[in-house]
């Protein structure tokens, strides 16, 4: 029996971790932006599903992966507009509208899949791209630098989102709208417009998350492909304290434990499989109880804004 800590087992764990973390990263980073502006979008899973189907279908019928990716982003954008309309303009109760969006995305993706495709089919997804030189570094190389483009972009997105939120005017506006919309409004920032923008960016990223599943990691579509990953992504935003680096940490932690528990099962360690499957969830809660969450949530999170109302 292989030792748990032999080098290739660790390499395998890290490899799977990166694959598992990719959709979480896209979706959670997107949700971070939306929540920083004060809107909770619980419908991320629905967006991921409908976009995953769109990407899969377009790739299946046209053979173009990039077209599929673009379609997924556009579907995400469209659903983001819908969510913004309901949650920002119509000021709906955001938790509930999110659930509605989730059910819509779940149903629509299954419906379209059944009507347009009918049976499970695979596509050729984004192939792994080895980065020259870096990809040859022993041990680290094959894990980090031989992945597909959507995987690389997910990780590169972390510093991009960080930079956008911390170092640009737009990011400052987003944060102010989420912290104190009344003050932002009095300074001439259009609260609704910023929130629309943030939710749409978030939804577009959720769309790309879906595409990463159907045309990069799994290369197929089936009913309920995401199996609730969108909700985990939302949870990770809270775990990460609305900071992109924190979200990265959360996604990696969750994914590495998930990957680890699979190895535990494969290597035949005598622990009931249900307990192994529980581990990522248990450890995520445990991690939060021991680390102090320094970031406070955006003060206006989940509060629709009405000028003159507060």
């Amino acid at each position, binding site marked *: 029996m*292989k030792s748990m800590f032999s080098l*290739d*087992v660790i390499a*395998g764990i890290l*490899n*799977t971790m990166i*694959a*598992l973390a990719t*959709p979480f990263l896209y979706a959670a980073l997107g949700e971070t932006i939306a929540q920083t502006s004060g809107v909770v979008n619980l419908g991320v899973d629905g967006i991921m599903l409908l976009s995953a189907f769109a990407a899969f279908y377009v790739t299946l019928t046209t053979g173009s992966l990039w077209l599929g990716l673009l379609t997924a982003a556009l579907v995400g954008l469209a659903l983001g507009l819908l969510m913004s309309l309901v949650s920002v303009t119509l000021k709906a109760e955001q938790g509930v509208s999110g659930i509605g969006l989730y059910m819509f995305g779940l149903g629509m993706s*299954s419906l379209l*899949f*059944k009507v347009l495709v*009918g*049976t*499970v*089919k*695979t596509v050729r997804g984004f192939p792994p791209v080895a980065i020259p030189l870096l990809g040859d570094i022993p041990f680290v190389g094959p894990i980090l630098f031989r992945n597909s483009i959507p995987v690389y972009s997910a990780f590169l997105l972390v510093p991009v989102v960080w930079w956008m939120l911390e170092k640009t005017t737009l990011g400052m506006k987003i944060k102010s709208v989420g912290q104190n919309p009344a003050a932002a409004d009095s300074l001439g920032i259009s609260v609704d417009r910023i929130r629309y923008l943030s939710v749409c960016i978030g939804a577009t990223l959720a769309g790309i998350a879906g595409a990463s*599943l159907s045309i990069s*990691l*799994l*290369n*197929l579509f*089936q*009913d*309920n*492909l*995401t*199996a609730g*990953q969108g909700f985990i992504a939302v949870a990770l935003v809270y775990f990460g304290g609305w900071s992109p680096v924190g979200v990265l940490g959360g996604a990696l932690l969750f994914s590495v434990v*998930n*990957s680890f528990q*699979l*190895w535990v*099962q*494969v*290597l*035949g360690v005598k622990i009931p*499989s*249900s307990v192994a*499957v529980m581990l990522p969830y248990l450890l995520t809660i445990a991690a939060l109880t021991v680390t102090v969450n320094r970031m406070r949530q955006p003060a206006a999170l989940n509060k629709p804004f009405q000028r003159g109302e507060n």
Partner: protein
Amino acid sequence: MKGKLFLIAGLLIVVLAATAMAAPFRIAVVMPSATTDMAFSQSMWSALLSVQKAMGGESAVVLKYSENMYKVPDAAAAVRDYASQGFDIVIAHGSQYGSSVQEIAKDFPDVTFAWGTDVNTFGLPNVYAYTAAAEQGGYVNGVMAARLTKSKKVGVTGPVEVGDAKTYIDGFSQGVQSVNTSITLSKTWTGSFSDVALMAAAAKTHIASGADVLTGSSQSVVGSIGAAKDQGSVLWFGTQSDQAPLASKLVVASQVYDWTGMLRDIIAKHKAGTLGGITYTLTLSNGGLKIAYNPSFSLPASVKAAGDAAVKGIAGGSISVTP
């Protein structure tokens, strides 16, 4: 006068023909997952479709279905609804529907209820029960897998250790053991029947640990098959439905649930007046279980022979597989 007679005769013939064209036979089925799941529900739905075709199409057999009925009270409502609409046979295709069938069947003594997978007809005269001895095909697959693995490592990606997922995998393990006890058989359970991403990750883990033959159960194994495809040379054994279309170069064989024989028998019995009371088990010997070899995969003759021998042995009774 003659003209009138001919007219009357003609009308009589038309009327007689119309009544002779028996009212179509009506079958309804309630399923816990989608008809396209490449697994449990699809196996029943495609069997029903082929029975319908064989019996003369939609004019002879009317089929209605309700899928994705994983909420049991909703499935109960569906079963009751179809029964009250006067369907001849209502199939409750899911083991969680048992208590519902037990209650509803009493209220509709003229309707035949068929449910599975389980062996309990509740002592009711209008309930048929059915199950599949999935462990049998599992054993055969295991025998072939043991002979095909070069790395002597075989991986099993399972969903939840219950029902025919468990029995299939138990049979598979026994099949592998019967060929070579030094082969490493690793099992993973994802804790879900639908989490494709986790199933794919599990398969990748098996592959990374050296397994070159994989199997598994549930609709989410499409993830495992995808992972095998990504790697390029890992072989796959399937169950419940023929999974060859998903990876034509890598799927060796699938155990297929063929419900058509059972369905025809139930229909015939219902027409003859026996509305229930029998338990059907799909086995290799009665043809309910079949091993569908993938024609695009070049299976060495010796391995096929071993598979055939296993089938013969189980069907004949010389090999016994108990989950």
